[in-house]
């Protein structure tokens, strides 16, 4: 499976993502610049964390107009897996690929720590290697991770089981319903504030993020076998 890791001015988790899928999982992965105009030949997209365009205006608001985004939208429409972590999640909401938005943390603090997450939906292409309601540990590092959407959107998220990860015990940012990660209705675009790519080796303090990427690869393989 060949992943594109999109690199914006100000991205800073791009190397972590490439490391996770290429060096740890042994899949193919390449950096693709924000101003490139093609994702031809890629099977999936990874949008990294960081501070694209210095978080000017709103987090992700300017990155969303990068030339590569129309290609990300094309792959998403084709049903290929698209994953955004942290700033990547913010970019996906700004681009309209995921509903809702990420507000400033309720405490106003930038939070950088390991959190406990509950896998509340393991029937997705991103989480099938986890047990339902399993509690895992992943790091977070953000100032704007407070997920918000209107009531109608929240109802839709619940009805379609689009809420995938919730903060298990302590909610670090004040997000609605303790939401940490959601998937689109079709199930192929996932955004989350925590960083699974920073938890793929025991040396890093947790290996709980590894099964996230394994799920993507495994389900892609299954889909290909059935095609």
């Amino acid at each position, binding site marked *: 499976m060949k992943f594109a890791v999109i690199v914006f001015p100000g991205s800073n988790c791009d190397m972590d993502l490439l490391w996770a899928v290429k060096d740890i999982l042994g899949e193919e992965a390449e950096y693709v610049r924000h101003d490139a105009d093609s994702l031809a030949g890629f099977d999936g997209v990874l949008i990294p964390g960081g501070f694209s365009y210095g978080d000017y205006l709103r987090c992700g608001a300017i990155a969303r107009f990068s030339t590569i985004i129309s290609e990300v939208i094309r792959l998403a429409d084709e049903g290929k897996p698209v994953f955004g972590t942290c700033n990547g999640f913010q970019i996906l909401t700004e681009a309209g690929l995921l509903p809702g938005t990420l*507000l400033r943390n309720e405490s106003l603090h930038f939070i950088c720590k390991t959190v406990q997450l509950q896998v509340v939906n393991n029937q997705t292409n991103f989480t099938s290697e986890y047990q339902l309601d399993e509690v895992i540990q992943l790091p977070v590092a953000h100032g704007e991770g407070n997920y918000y959407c209107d009531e109608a959107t929240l109802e839709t998220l619940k009805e379609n089981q689009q809420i995938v990860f919730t903060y298990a015990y302590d909610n670090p940012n004040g997000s609605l319903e303790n939401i940490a990660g959601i998937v689109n209705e079709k199930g192929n675009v996932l955004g989350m504030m925590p960083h699974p790519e920073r938890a793929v080796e025991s040396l890093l303090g947790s290996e709980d993020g590894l099964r996230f990427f394994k799920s993507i690869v495994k389900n892609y393989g299954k889909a290909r076998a059935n095609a």
Partner: protein
Amino acid sequence: MYNVKVYVTYKDSVLDPQGEAVKGAVHRLGFEEISEIRIGKYFEIKVHQTAQPIETVIEAICDKLLANVNMETYRYEIMEEV
């Protein structure tokens, strides 16, 4: 030539933690009578002649970029310079 002022603010339903923090500081200054402070964004835009009506142009810019309509609303003032 137009001078346009755009104000972007959180919707009433959205909590503004920055505004809350500033309100707390204002109270500590001794101005207990202040009941609410909400922080927004202000843009000054200069526009030469537009092919479409200027309102259409400004609203398109606001809807697509300056405001995130999921959480924010906006209003604008257009002043023509003679």
